[in-house]
């Protein structure tokens, strides 16, 4: 029997569908004869008591989740998300540099250093990528810190804001589509497949709608994993192979009949009734991987 700690923060229980998904993980573990326990920030020092750690709290090299991941990894525990995946996925500059190095199809991207924020460079970027462009801070998650800009003054305004935390940013070609593919991958294999629909009149999956205070998300349409087009499967798996062998959610867009990677996420969202719509066994598969 394997003792699995699931590292969570209070906010993981604020959405009922996420809470239900966490209970599904617990049930799946118990059904498979494993022990599954939620581990909160207060008890991080208890990690050595477990055999495996499954992180559901938001990961970033600067978050407590990284401390949890690296501690578990150093102690030889099985861990999702492992520290290397957090390091690569938590920094989009790192990730895009690797996608470029290994020639994975991706959205055209240019890196911008803090001291390059001048007219000539910005003009060159607009010439190369067209207008508008998408500015992305390396630490983006949940569609935040990703903004569209079509003129130099707003480009400068957004870039200055993002440069407060990171000395390098990514600028991408604006590629509007009706939906993003979200392919869940575990240990080099497809775990689930969804279409994250873009809300009407918007350009990203999570968007602030006029007149509403909170973020609104587009619909999630799931497909059975066997029905994923083979080229999509190939690109998604190639993208993950650049990062590691853990659990990822790859976002891809279909452009001119082919697929390009938007980004690879570690710690992908798994909400009951969304990602698990068609493949109900995703909970058991993740638990089996952790207890193997």
């Amino acid at each position, binding site marked *: 029997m394997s003792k699995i700690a699931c590292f969570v923060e209070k906010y993981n229980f604020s959405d009922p569908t996420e809470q239900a998904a966490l209970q599904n993980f617990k049930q799946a573990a118990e059904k498979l004869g494993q022990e599954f326990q939620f581990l909160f920030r207060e008890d*991080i020092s208890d990690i050595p008591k477990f055999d495996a750690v499954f992180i559901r709290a938001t990961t970033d090299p600067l978050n407590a989740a990284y401390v949890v991941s*690296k501690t578990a990894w150093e102690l030889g525990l099985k861990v999702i998300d492992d520290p290397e995946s957090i390091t690569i996925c938590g920094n989009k500059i790192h990730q895009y540099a690797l996608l470029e190095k290994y020639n994975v199809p991706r959205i055209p991207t240019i890196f911008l250093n803090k001291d390059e924020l001048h007219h000539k460079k910005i003009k060159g970027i607009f010439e190369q990528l067209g207008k508008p462009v998408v500015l992305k801070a390396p*630490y983006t998650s949940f569609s935040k810190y990703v903004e569209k800009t079509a003129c130099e003054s707003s480009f400068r305004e957004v870039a200055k804001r993002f440069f407060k935390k990171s000395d390098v940013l990514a600028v991408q070609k604006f590629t509007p589509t009706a939906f993003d593919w979200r392919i869940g991958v575990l240990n080099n294999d497809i775990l689930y497949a969804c279409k994250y629909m873009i809300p009407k009149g918007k350009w990203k999956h999570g968007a602030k709608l006029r007149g509403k205070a909170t973020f609104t998300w587009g619909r999630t349409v799931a497909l059975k994993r066997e029905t994923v087009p083979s080229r999509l499967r190939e690109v998604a798996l190639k993208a993950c192979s650049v990062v590691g062998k853990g659990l990822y959610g790859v976002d891809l867009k279909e452009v001119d009949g082919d697929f390009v990677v938007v980004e690879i996420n570690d710690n992908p969202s798994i909400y009951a009734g969304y990602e698990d719509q068609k493949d109900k066994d995703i909970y058991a598969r993740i638990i089996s991987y952790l207890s193997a």
Partner: protein
Amino acid sequence: MLVVSNLDLTIDSSVVKPSTFLGSTIKEATLNINNEYRYLKTGYYVSLHAEVLGNKVIPSCENIIDSSRTPVLLLRAARAGIPTLPFLVTDSVKKIATEMGFPAVLFAVNPFIYEGFKTAHNKSALYRAMKSLGMNYKFAVCAQPLKGEMVTFKSFFGKCESQDIASQNISRKLYEAFNIPVCKLHIQKTPDEAFLCGLEPINKQELTDQDLKTISKEVMLFSEQGDTLVVQNRLFC
């Protein structure tokens, strides 16, 4: 060997500016000298760029991140034989008060605070310290027992300005384990022992002309060793 630095080093061979290196594809073993190896800052991106190019680089991205996360620093340091004290990572005042007691020394574990520490000799001081380092109890802290006196000094290539042998050993061993060429160390001194407590970047203003000379001398020594650049690449092997 390529030397990339944002500092005014006084060495014979050429030094490449970080911005020049980031825009290049120079494939050569890289020594990255920066006063501040902070995640998401230029010092980090230089090492990242070198790693993606396939260059051997000092320091590695993994070591940059781990050395600034106090609990990971202490865990890895202890495993490398460096004297450390037992620590707790938690956001619970009660847990520290009951399981560790007083006095205690606390370091932040959050994305915003990267320097300094606080000491607490009683529960109300602990509340105050956790409120400030945990940013209104929102984040965890790393607590260690306070057995002696906290001292802070600069460390260049594992050599430190302290006259104390135990502190010198910590500085040297820590450099062997993490390869951070320029940093500041927080050490706890008791009459007979010394324990590593934390590591943080140095502000550029804190570097004196003498410090820059010392770093330059070390860089020269390093360059002379040339291809013997030994890089620990633990994760990526």
